Every structure is written in structure tokens, then in C-alpha cells.
């Protein structure tokens, strides 16, 4: 048994990592829980830590780009986190998955990097994208006609010609491609941890480098912020389909959470999987993807956090001279949809070839709402560590469950979201028994005040985690950019700590009574699939049209 020792206060994207957040290459290491500042109770012990809040240097460029810097000179390395305030939340119906697909495309290079001759390549790409779009349109028409019973459509010859043309263009365009050149340059110069991640609220691009290679980073990143080129589009869409199969369709947790989340949100885009619905991914076009980039990837929607062995003045000059030349763009359009009040419990099942598990979620406010801090405490009291209420009762004492965890910002942070408890029963106990035991503990939050000792434990762990989060350049950069993007200010973390410290037992009783109620609840259950009975019911594989 592993002790779950991290306090998952706000902004923990942990659950998102497994179920909502989609990454370019592989899963990121777990994000550090929190960050910055820290007045330990024995503040005299921690002069550096306490002063770290003062070490953040903040700068905003004329085009709206925000830069945050922290000097750490122990090792001649630097970590950079470039975060855009865009994600699945910004997608429209039938274009789900486009934020994540663009993130993949952002590694395909620019007008200079990744190409042997952009001018010649460009003509081919334009033509390829026209033909590809037309081909897919025709293929869909054919499929629809075939389904309607008109097997002999006159379009068949057109289709073959288009297919031929598409193949040929794709091949010719391929001759100009220098595959993965951007990543190659980073790696050659000692870069590690190159990755990117797309979530509901934000999209992030990470790299760590020897400190003297920042000019390489600035040149590459400013270039892709200004002039990305969508090359190898159709192949990369295939890669994303494989990613969806891997993370969602072949994963019991992936399927459970996709279904559960879609049931919990009926209107708001939080209900849509970040990776996108399969049919949408396969229908995304280069034109729509480019449009998405133009709308959401302006400098005013970006934050750069740099932590490491740097001279801030020099770094700012470097950034002004590169990113500073990118023109400002209009603000990204706001998300208007608001999830309507839930009026009754929703229950969904997923049948899968795996042992059972369950998720219970309640709608709650997003970042900045006073009740959100109270949920941070509830989350910690219930599942943080082996002495937490749910772990000690369900796993240790009653032995009903093999595991129980919770998350207070699922699947995103910015908009009203869900407080979710997840558990796996221990056989022969059932999901029903585990669900009943969880609900019993949630009821207790309403009737009995949480003890002073429990609250003290929460705060001790929060403060210690804040210190620990300062250990790594990459972790600190991630935290700074995260808060800046989702809360509008990195200092939010300092304020949040004090708000959490001020939460009282009465607050917890009030919030539990208000939100943790049946009509506000969604329950998702993974049911072990029968060996033969349900086999016929598996969905037909959706054909990929253009590969």
C-alpha cells in the first residue's frame, strides 16, 4: 500500500491526467501539489522559502504576453513552461479534440524549421488540404448513401481519383518534410522533458535545457507562436486516434470517466472528453485547426514561466527581441455556456472487461468561489493519506475497498466543476456496498464537525507540500504558469493558502449540506462484462477514412 501523501488542494490536475488531460508524448510526472511561499510555523527555519514569493519577477510585454521568472543558481539548467489559456473548454460541437490535435500539430515545425523548402511545400500543402477535405466529404456522403441502401452511387470514380490525388500529394509534400526537427534541435542541445499537455482549461509546452541554450528555446518557441505549419496533418490525426484507443477505449478507467463526465455535464464543454469523440477527431480539417490556432494562440493568451540559472534582465531582453515582435491579437472569445442546475441523480454504467469500480461526483463552484476552498479541505479530510476518513474506514477498517481517492477540481479548474470520489471495491464486496459506505461518510460531514486535529493535519500537509514544490525548477515553473493562467495571477496560491487555513468546521458542515446531496449527484459504475452475453453489443469500429 502506498501512502497517498500529497495534499491535492486546488489545481491539482492529477485526475485530469488520467482521464481528461491529454499529453503529447506520454503522461507527465504527477504535478507538484502547490507552490510558492510558505511560512512554515517555524519561519526562522526557512528564510529562503519564505522569501521565494519575493523572488518571482513578473513582466508583461506590450503584446500582452506574461513572463514570470525565478532565479535558482544551484545547477546551470533552466526549465520553461509556456502555457496558453486554451483547452477543451473552447471547442465547438462537432470539433471536439481540436485543442489537443493542434497541440500535436505544434510539433510539426514552422516556415523555417521542419522543412527543406517552405515555398514549394506550401503549395502542395494547400492543395493536399483541399483535396483531403473534399475526399472526406465524399467519403461521408458515400457512407451515408450506403447506409440508406443506395449502393451504386455515381461518385465512385470521383472518389478513386481523389484518393489517388490525395496519396500523390501527401507523398510529394512528404519529400519536403524534415521530420520532428524541432524536437531534434532541442534534444541535440541537451533538452530533456520535452512534452506538451492539453487539458480542459489550458495547453502547456514544457522543456528543460542547459541554461545557456535559452536563445534556442526563444527562437523555436517564438517562431511556432507566430508561424506554425500544419504539415503531416492526416498522419498525425491517425496518431491521435491511436492515442484515443490507448487512453480511452482500451482503458477501464478511461471509459468509465468519459461516460461519467458526459453524464454529469449536459451543456458545458467540461462534459466532453479532451481528446475528442472518435468521429469528431476523424472529421477535423486543417482549415478548422488553423482557425483554432489563430483564435486562441495569441501572445495575450500566453504565460511563460522560467525557473533556473538565469539572469532575468538578459532573459527579458531575449524575450522582447523574439516574442516581442509577435503582434497582439484580439482577446479569445469567452465560453458562454453555463451548466444548468442538476435536478436529480444521474446514474450511468459502463460494461467492460475489467473488475468493477465507481465514481461519484457532485457539481460545485470553480476557482475563486469561497466554497471552493472548503472543498479543498473536505477533499483532504476524506482521502489524503492512510489516516484520512475514507481510507481508514473503507480500506483499513471495513475492508470494503481496495482503493479510494478524490478530486476537487474535476475535470477542470476555471469553470464550475465536480468534486469526485473514486473507489474500487474489494471482492466479494460490491460497488453498491462501497457507494453506501462513501455516502455514509459524506453524511457525517453534515452532522459532525470536523475535529481541530484533522484541520491542523490538513494545514501542516499543505504547508509542507508548498515547501516541497520548490525543489524542482520544472515543478515551480509549472505552478507559476498554471495559477497565472487559471486564476489570472500566480499570487493566487499564496492567497489560497490563507483562505484554506481560515476554513472552519461550520463551513464544512454548511458546504456539505448544500452540495453533497442526491439531486446534485452523478454516479458512474464500471461493470464487469459477462463473457458471452454482451459480446454482440460492442460498437462497430468506426472506420478511419483517410489513411
Amino acid at each position, binding site marked *: *500500500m502506498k*501512502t497517498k501523501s500529497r495534499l491535492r488542494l486546488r489545481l491539482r490536475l492529477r485526475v485530469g491526467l488520467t482521464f481528461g488531460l491529454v499529453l503529447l508524448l*506520454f*503522461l*507527465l510526472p504527477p504535478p507538484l501539489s502547490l507552490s510558492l511561499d510558505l511560512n512554515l510555523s517555524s519561519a526562522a*527555519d526557512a528564510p*529562503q*522559502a519564505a522569501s521565494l514569493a519575493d523572488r518571482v519577477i513578473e513582466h508583461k510585454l506590450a503584446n500582452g504576453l506574461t513572463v514570470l521568472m525565478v532565479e535558482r543558481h*544551484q*545547477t*546551470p*539548467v533552466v526549465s520553461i513552461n509556456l502555457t496558453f489559456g486554451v483547452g477543451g473548454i473552447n471547442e465547438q460541437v462537432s470539433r471536439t479534440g481540436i485543442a489537443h490535435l493542434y497541440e500535436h500539430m505544434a510539433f510539426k515545425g514552422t516556415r*523555417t524549421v521542419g522543412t527543406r523548402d517552405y515555398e514549394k511545400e506550401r503549395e502542395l500543402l494547400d492543395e493536399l488540404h483541399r483535396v483531403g477535405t473534399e475526399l472526406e466529404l465524399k467519403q461521408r456522403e458515400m457512407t451515408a448513401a450506403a447506409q440508406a441502401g443506395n449502393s451504386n452511387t455515381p461518385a465512385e470514380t470521383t472518389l478513386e481519383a481523389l484518393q489517388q490525388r490525395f496519396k500523390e500529394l501527401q507523398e510529394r509534400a512528404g519529400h519536403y518534410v524534415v*521530420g520532428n526537427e524541432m524536437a*531534434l534541435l532541442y*534534444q*541535440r542541445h*541537451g533538452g*530533456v522533458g520535452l512534452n506538451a499537455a492539453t487539458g480542459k482549461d489550458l495547453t502547456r509546452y514544457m522543456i528543460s535545457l*542547459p*541554461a*545557456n*541554450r535559452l536563445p534556442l528555446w*526563444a*527562437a523555436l518557441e517564438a517562431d511556432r507562436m507566430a508561424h506554425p505549419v500544419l504539415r*503531416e496533418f492526416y*498522419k498525425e490525426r491517425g*496518431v491521435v486516434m*491511436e*492515442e484515443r*484507443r*490507448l487512453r480511452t*477505449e*482500451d*482503458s*477501464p478507467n478511461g471509459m468509465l470517466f468519459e461516460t461519467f463526465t458526459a453524464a454529469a455535464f449536459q451543456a458545458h464543454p467540461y462534459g466532453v472528453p479532451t481528446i475528442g469523440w472518435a468521429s469528431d477527431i476523424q472529421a477535423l480539417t486543417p482549415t478548422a485547426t488553423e482557425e483554432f490556432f489563430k483564435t486562441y494562440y495569441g501572445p495575450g493568451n500566453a504565460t511563460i514561466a522560467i525557473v533556473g*540559472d538565469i*539572469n532575468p534582465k*538578459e532573459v527579458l531582453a*531575449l524575450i522582447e*527581441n*523574439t516574442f516581442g515582435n509577435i503582434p497582439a491579437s484580439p482577446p479569445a472569445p469567452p465560453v458562454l455556456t453555463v451548466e444548468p442546475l442538476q435536478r436529480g441523480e444521474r446514474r450511468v454504467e459502463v460494461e467492460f*472487461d*475489467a*473488475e468493477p469500480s465507481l465514481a461519484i461526483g457532485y457539481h460545485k463552484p470553480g476557482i475563486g468561489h469561497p466554497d471552493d476552498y472548503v472543498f479543498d479541505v473536505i477533499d483532504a479530510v476524506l482521502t489524503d493519506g492512510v*489516516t484520512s476518513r475514507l481510507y481508514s474506514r473503507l*480500506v483499513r477498517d471495513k*475492508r470494503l475497498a*481496495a482503493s479510494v481517492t478524490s478530486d476537487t477540481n474535476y475535470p477542470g479548474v476555471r469553470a464550475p466543476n465536480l468534486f469526485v470520489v473514486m473507489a*474500487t471495491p*474489494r*471482492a466479494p464486496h460490491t460497488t453498491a456496498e462501497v457507494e453506501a459506505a462513501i455516502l455514509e461518510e459524506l453524511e457525517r460531514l453534515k452532522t459532525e464537525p470536523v475535529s481541530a*486535529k484533522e484541520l491542523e*493535519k490538513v494545514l501542516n500537509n499543505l504547508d*509542507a*507540500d508548498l*515547501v*516541497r514544490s520548490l525543489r524542482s*525548477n520544472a515543478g515551480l515553473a509549472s505552478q507559476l504558469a498554471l495559477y497565472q493562467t487559471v486564476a489570472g495571477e500566480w499570487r493566487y496560491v499564496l492567497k489560497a493558502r490563507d483562505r484554506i487555513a481560515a476554513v472552519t468546521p461550520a463551513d464544512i458542515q454548511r458546504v456539505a449540506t448544500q452540495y453533497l446531496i442526491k439531486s446534485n449527484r452523478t454516479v458512474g459504475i464500471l461493470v464487469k*462484462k459477462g463473457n458471452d452475453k454482451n459480446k454482440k453489443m460492442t460498437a462497430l469500429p468506426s472506420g478511419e477514412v483517410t489513411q
Partner: protein
Amino acid sequence: MRLVRGEGVGVRGQIPAIAVMLLAIVGGQATVGSAGDLTLDDPRRMKFSPVEFNPPEPERVVLDNGLVVYLLEDHELPLITVNAMLKTGSWLDPADKVGLAALAGSVMRTGGSMRMSADQVDEELEQLAASLSISIGRESGSASLDVLKKDLKRGIQIFADLLRAPAFDPARVELAKLQAIESIRRRQDNPGSIVGREFVKLLYGSDHPTARESTVASIQRLTRDDLIAFHQHTVQPNGMILGVTGDFEKGAMLTTLREVFGDWQKGEVPDLKIPDVPEGEASLSTVRFVSKETTQTHLRVGHLTIKENDPDYVALAIANDILGGSSFRSRLFNDVRTKRGLAYSVGSAVRTGTHDQGIWLMRAETKLASTQEVINRFVANVERLRTEPVTDEELDEAKEAYVNSFVFSFTSPSAIVNRLMELEYDGLPKDFLQQLRDKVVKLTKEELLAAAKKHLHPDRLKILAVGPGEALPRLLSGFGEVKEIRLTPEG
């Protein structure tokens, strides 16, 4: 494996897909000052001075009872970390009690000590926001304590008590057994978990200490007395290496360590020996599948290989880096993912240690229909690596990536200390990493080709696929005689 250290880890515990190379370093100060006309600079032509960096040198002390201690002060934050490596492991499990070592490690942490009950230990650690873990793996045990400086005394006392005199509270023994049985029941839930474990069994044989797995029956057989005896016989001060980093003063720390560990009596330390797989079995090519209702075929293709202290290790590791170990830069990534769009996660790895034979493998997950194409690309890329030298550019890229990222091996005091502990545990010299770097710099294309020829064998491939059982036999039939591995549901 120390040469190619995974940065991003794939699906849990599998092969690191981004095997970023970490090497030593060296380098100058940033030349950022000349940033004036950077907009005009072409990133493809930038040159930088090497990174110069002298990592701090930990101190090594041996206590009278043989306990080895590495210490490295780091006063940036008020935290102290103590890591331990223990000469114990599941290679010691008796054949009818597989799971013993792992269970012993788990209950050493959760079962309380002679001084404190299990509940008291949990309560106190969590109130102090300390984290303490103990576990026993295949070839070593490990323990770690992470505390705020102000809580060092309490934390280290509990840490030492649990290591020296764990109480194995019967209720916690029972809980750990039930949890272990439940996780056995859940082993077949994820295709990634199945393919990873079954592939190791296919390579070593399912009874080999590296591959064997506990069963419900083997766990049920374990008693509290077994755990007590296992701890008594295998956890000894003279089989332990401690690494301490953080905000302390060396002299005072040594005094504290002597207080809590000094009167622990020496014992007989078990010998870490793992048998090699007989040559005949290892060299047979086999094709197997596991039937599971999935959308993708989860693939592993490879065979056993050399150990880390083999003279050819560096050449093989760099050859593999070019083949599929270096994510974006590698041939498999470019061929299977970028050019063909057939997989999200694809690559190869040389997973080696010094105690058992290593594994070389290629992996991917791809939709059922492209299964054959991916295996064909695997084979074609291996053949190419064995028959033609890599390009100068590929070799330069691999070397530069290794040398320029070497500094990342030294980015934290605990990383520096942990490496020294591992090297000592494995009987390797403390400058092993620096030696590797020097060898990498000198590697030639011819050496890579020779290593690939000698150590990669397309005629000995073990192919394992997890996916739809009605389709796989036909898809795999071109690669050899196909047999099914039937998994029996347990519990």
C-alpha cells in the same frame, strides 16, 4: 539502467518512451547578452559553449556495524530526505511463497514498531506531514523518509524503528494480504499491464525470479511468522546503504544516525545471485498472443540481452537510442508514428541491470488492422540497424544529446546521492556515469554496427500481442507458429 534514463514514462512501469540520455556535463555561462538580433538567428545553426559544472561531492561514512552512509548538505529548503537501499528482494522468495518479500516490505511500513502501534505511526507521520515509505522489490529493498527539518528527530526514530524492529501487527498483515489478493484479481484489467508482465515471463520463463508472480494461493499461504523471519534474515545494517540530503550539518547528522542505528548488530547478508536463462530457451523464436477484448493490439517484440557491465553495453545502448530509445529522434518513432501514423506510443528499450540478464524490446500499441505492418516495420528497422551503419548525423545527434543533457543527472542533491548508492549496491565504480560518457564520445559507427549485429537477433524474436483473440492468430501467422497464452481468472 543508468545510461538511458527515462524522462517521460509510458504507460505505467513500461518502457520509458522518451529515453532521454543524461550525461555529464560541462559548460559555460550563458551568452544571452548578445540577444540583440535573435529574431534573425536560425535555430538550426545556433552554437553554444559546453556547460561547465562541478557537482558537489557527497561524503561516504561507514558505521561500525557496516552501515554505509552518504551525506550531502543542501540548505536551500528546510527539508531532509533519508533514502535507504537494502540487500533483500523477492529473488529470495521460496517457490511456494512468491510474494513474501513484497508483503514483508509493505507490512514493515504499515504494521507498527516495537515502540509504537501501527495507528500511532500513521497518525504521527501524517500529522507531521512527513512521508515514509518502505518496499521490497525484485533485487533490492528501499525505504525513504522525507521530513521538515524541525521534525527530523521524530521522523528518523520512527524510520529506524520500522526498519530494525517492525511489529507486523496481525491486523495489518491480514489487510496487506487481502489487498495483495485483490490486486492479483485486477491484473487482467488493463491490456498494458498484461502485455508487460507476460512478455517478461515469455523471456525468462514464468518460474524465473525476475518473472514469477504471486498467486492467490501463494499469498494465502503466507503467515505473520513468515514475514518476521524474512525480515530477521534479510534486513541487516551491513546490507544497507543510507543516503541523507538536505538541511542538516554533517557532524550532527552522523551523531543522530549513530543514536538510532549504531547499536544494531551486524548479521549475515544474503547473496544477490540470479540465474541466467539457459541459452537454448532464450534463443528460440516464439509468437504468442493473449486474447482480450480491445481496439488495439498491444505489442512487445524482443529478446534477452546483455548486462549493464558488459563491454558492449554503451554501443548497444546508443544503437538502441537511434533505433527507438530517443522518442522524436529515433527511427521507430519517425517511421511508425510520424510517417505512418500507426501508433501513439512506439519505441524500443534496453533495460539492463547488473544482476540478471537485460531485456531488449520494441513496443507499440496499434489498431488491429495495422498489427502486421507495425511488426514488419520493427523487423525491417532491426535488420537495417544490423546491416548498414547509422549515418554520421544520427551518431552525432545521439552523442550531442547525451553529452549536452549530462548536467541533468546532477540537478538535485538527492539525485546525486541516489546514484552513488545504486552504483555501490550494484558493484559499479562511482564514476561509472562519467566513464559511460567518455565511451559514448568515442563511439564509432562501426562499433554500433558490430554491437547491433552481435546483440540484436531478428531470428530469435519473442513476439507477444494482446488483443482480439479471434483475429490475432491470422495476423501473426506470418511471423512463426502462433500459440495462445490463456490467462486464468483468479480469485
